[in-house]
């Protein structure tokens, strides 16, 4: 009776082309479309809705840089959809739609020094920006990457962050764990304590923070106390999302929708919201 | 009503003065046909307490709210409300040590339908215990309390029971097809106290049992399974039917099961203590066999 136009809720098809077990409960999936390329173009920090019926759909940050020729997701096994994803094999097909969300404003970051702070799986969305910046290295200033996890077995993309990133010019990686084992030679302590130790100057710097909500809260507080302008602190908000297109109402906070106006917000924007979590 | 209201205010005042943290009663709404639950913590607010013709709401369900845990509570309960309270005590859902109850001899109340017509509340026409006789303090006059014959107890289900099975199913198919799965019946029921409901659907852990879709099989499943879960608990306080926005006669489903339990099993409707559990929780060797039509009447 009526013509079927392409509905924004209709997933496209994608194929799992590689799976790597990063930690006990995190796997990184390489995803391509049926022609071998990226399922769609996107910008650093954006997300995609992965579809695994009948378990359902869930939204994930795209962890690969948009300059890569495939897409990667680092997925932690926490619920119904993610546990189904953890049962997937190479060659399995999944549904995918996107890109959703506002990206990190990489154009605005040019010429700035960048301080990335990732807690646990929070490194996943940051990696998209980091790899983009490291590929276009000359456009950006000094890069410092602080990663913290519970133990040394919980780092995602461990080889990349310990072997590839420190090799890049003007790029330092600083690792910390909450609880060290005997062979750990790095810092032991929570990220805010490590930041205090590292004592970064805010001058000419943008801070980009992602991790568990409680970590973001303390880190942002600490950065502000060190003199960072809230408009220069970028972070991500996490809320349950279903449609990804700002209509189902689930991720509504203030007059914003995390799926559409976020997940990237500056600390200044978050402070302007009447509701805080 | 004035007698009851005045007594409520007096008891609430004394209660707060003697160390109660919160009083749960009723107060007027904006319209004459409204009566809403009131939660009083200050003596200054006592005057808002009011019992009117529409104070149907069973307040015992509020005792389950987690904000009230460990608080010293004073609560007003009509006969029907008190039966639900007793079940809550039997099932260990409330701690009677912290709860001061005042009973109300209920004269029978009114309800307002969708078109704005008011009438005597249907559930009051079958009520057998308007006065919570066991309680120490009962306000209102017992002589004025509504009197129904025991014949009235299952009057709402007798007509349905006389129909053939397929006629009954057609009736329920028609009624339940209106269901919008708002879950008000479940949420208002004082005896539906599971913190994780197996009939919730959505992303809850129960999604293997039931769907959120508008589909007769799903809605029918919801109503029938909830009624079975309430078997032995439901006291016909009538809340479920009262709150339903699309007028599904939910009480009939529960009352049918109550009628069957009365016929098939020898157990009181509301036990005096937790030594007697409903038929779903209790097994006895002389229980009727499944499929048999035993008991006092042909169920």
């Amino acid at each position: 009776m009526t013509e079927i136009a392409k509905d924004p809720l209709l997933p496209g098809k994608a194929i799992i082309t590689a799976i790597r077990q990063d930690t006990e409960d995190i796997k990184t999936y390489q995803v391509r479309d049926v022609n071998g390329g990226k399922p769609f173009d996107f910008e650093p920090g954006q997300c995609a809705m992965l579809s695994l019926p009948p378990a359902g759909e869930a939204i994930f940050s795209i962890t690969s840089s948009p300059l890569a020729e495939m897409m990667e997701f680092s997925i932690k096994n926490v619920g119904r959809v993610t546990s189904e994803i953890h049962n997937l094999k190479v060659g399995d097909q999944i549904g995918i739609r996107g890109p959703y969300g506002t990206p990190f404003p990489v154009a605005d970051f040019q010429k700035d020094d960048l301080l990335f702070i990732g807690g646990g799986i929070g490194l996943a969305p940051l990696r998209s920006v980091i790899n983009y910046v490291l590929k276009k290295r000359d456009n950006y200033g000094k890069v410092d990457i602080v990663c913290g996890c519970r133990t040394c077995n919980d780092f995602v993309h461990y080889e990349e962050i310990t072997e590839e990133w420190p090799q890049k010019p003007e790029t330092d990686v600083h690792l910390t764990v909450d609880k060290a084992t005997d062979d750990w030679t790095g810092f032991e302590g929570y990220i805010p304590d490590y930041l205090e130790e590292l004592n970064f100057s805010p001058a000419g710097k943008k801070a980009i923070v992602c991790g568990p909500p409680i970590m973001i809260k303390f880190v942002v507080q600490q950065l502000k106390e060190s003199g960072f302008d809230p408009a220069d602190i970028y972070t991500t908000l996490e809320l349950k999302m279903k449609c990804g297109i700002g209509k189902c109402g689930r991720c509504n906070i203030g007059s914003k929708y995390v799926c559409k106006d976020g997940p990237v917000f500056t600390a200044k924007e978050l402070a302007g919201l009447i509701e805080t979590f | 009503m004035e007698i009851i209201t005045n007594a409520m205010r007096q008891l609430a005042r004394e209660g707060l003065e003697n160390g109660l943290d919160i009083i749960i009663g009723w107060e007027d709404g904006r319209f004459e046909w409204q009566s809403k639950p009131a939660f009083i913590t200050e003596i200054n607010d006592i005057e808002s307490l009011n019992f009117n013709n529409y104070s149907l709401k069973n307040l015992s369900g509020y005792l389950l709210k987690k904000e009230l845990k460990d608080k010293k509570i004073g609560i007003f309960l009509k006969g029907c409300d008190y039966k639900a309270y007793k079940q809550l005590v039997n099932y260990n859902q409330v701690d009677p040590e912290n709860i001061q109850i005042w009973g109300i001899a209920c004269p029978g109340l009114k309800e307002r339908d969708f078109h704005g017509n008011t009438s005597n509340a249907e559930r009051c026409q079958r009520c057998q215990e308007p006065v919570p006789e066991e309680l120490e303090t009962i306000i209102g006059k017992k002589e004025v309390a509504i009197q129904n014959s025991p014949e009235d107890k299952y009057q709402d289900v007798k007509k349905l029971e006389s129909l053939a099975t397929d006629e009954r199913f057609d009736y329920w198919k028609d009624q339940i097809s209106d269901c919008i799965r708002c879950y008000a019946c479940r949420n208002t029921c004082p005896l539906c106290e599971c913190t994780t409901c197996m009939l919730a659907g959505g992303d809850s852990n129960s999604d293997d049992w039931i769907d959120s879709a508008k589909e007769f099989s799903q809605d029918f499943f919801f109503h029938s399974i909830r009624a079975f879960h309430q078997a032995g608990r439901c006291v016909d306080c009538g809340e479920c039917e009262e709150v339903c926005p699309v007028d599904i006669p939910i009480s009939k489903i529960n009352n049918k099961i109550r009628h069957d339990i009365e016929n098939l099993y020898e157990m009181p409707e509301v036990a005096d203590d937790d030594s007697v559990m409903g038929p779903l929780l209790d097994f006895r060797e002389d229980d009727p066999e499944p499929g048999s039509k035993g008991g006092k009447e042909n169920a």
Partner: protein
Amino acid sequence: MLKLDKNKLQDFLKAIEEEYQIQLPVKKADQTDFCNFEDTLKPNKGLEIDLNTRLSVKSPKSYLFPRSESYLEFKKDNERLDFKLKELTGKANLIFGIRNCDQESFKILDKVFLQEPVDQLYKRRRNSTITVVARCLEQSETCFCQLFEIEPAGSETGADLYYYNYNDGLYFTAGSDQGELILSDYSQYFKSVEPEIEKKLNQEANQFNGKITADSDNPLMQNKPELLYDNKEAIFNSDIWQELANRCLECGICTYLCPTCHCYDIQDYSADQSGERYRCWDSCLFSNFTEMAHGDNPREETYQRLRQRFFHKLVYFPEEQEESLACVGCGRCLGSCPVNIDITEVLALAGGVIND
């Protein structure tokens, strides 16, 4: 203006039934709600057309945004996974006897669903649905549409047809080209109207449209609907939300009956290797609405969710949508909430906070 004799109504509806699936207010037992016209013709169902009751139990939003709507079919075959969008089948809807509050609510739903990216499921129903508005020349005690600047006696455009219910006839005007077409295609059912009657009805309408704003006695119209928008912080941080939360049952009645509420969930249903994905109504008041997979729930307390619902309607939605408030004053929340929480009470409590 054209007149349809009431005793010709059924014939007219039977005629246009060829083209449209007609829904209209029908009395069933003690309630009035929208039902299929064809069901009223079935002898034993006991359904009669009711054009007098002002409000239907549920808003007719379900004809644009159904209670649940299966939109996708999926099929798994070893590693293969295929998706297919479902087609919309059947005749277009014609909603007969919708009140202007519900008609105006469609504008609010349009702002959500027709904003980019356009929701095609909604759009295909919206574009094909015909609405016939019953103009109100009276209000019931629970109505407060005028508080939200909605004219109960209707306007000139917006719906396809408008009618007055007067004595033995229904007096129609067209609000759109589609409406004009219906009046001309089925002209054999309509008669011309004496100018005096047309004038009288329009006059009554104008008087009624202006009346209630001037009527300051109406207890439902005492507080400005912009109260929350103009005093966000004070009202957000006040304890009125806990006061309401004390008695709120966290059910879906207000949300599901409300013409402007539109939150939805997406779920999959499967039978072995194939199945369907559907969307269905959801309520921000349900305890697990914002619960995340790892167990965190930012709005765990009832008062947070209650506050979210009213702030969304009266603050966040207008912030996002050019000051349009997401309420049409239909009064359904007032009539149906089991514990008497409604938007006018929220405004009254908010007014109390500001005046203190």
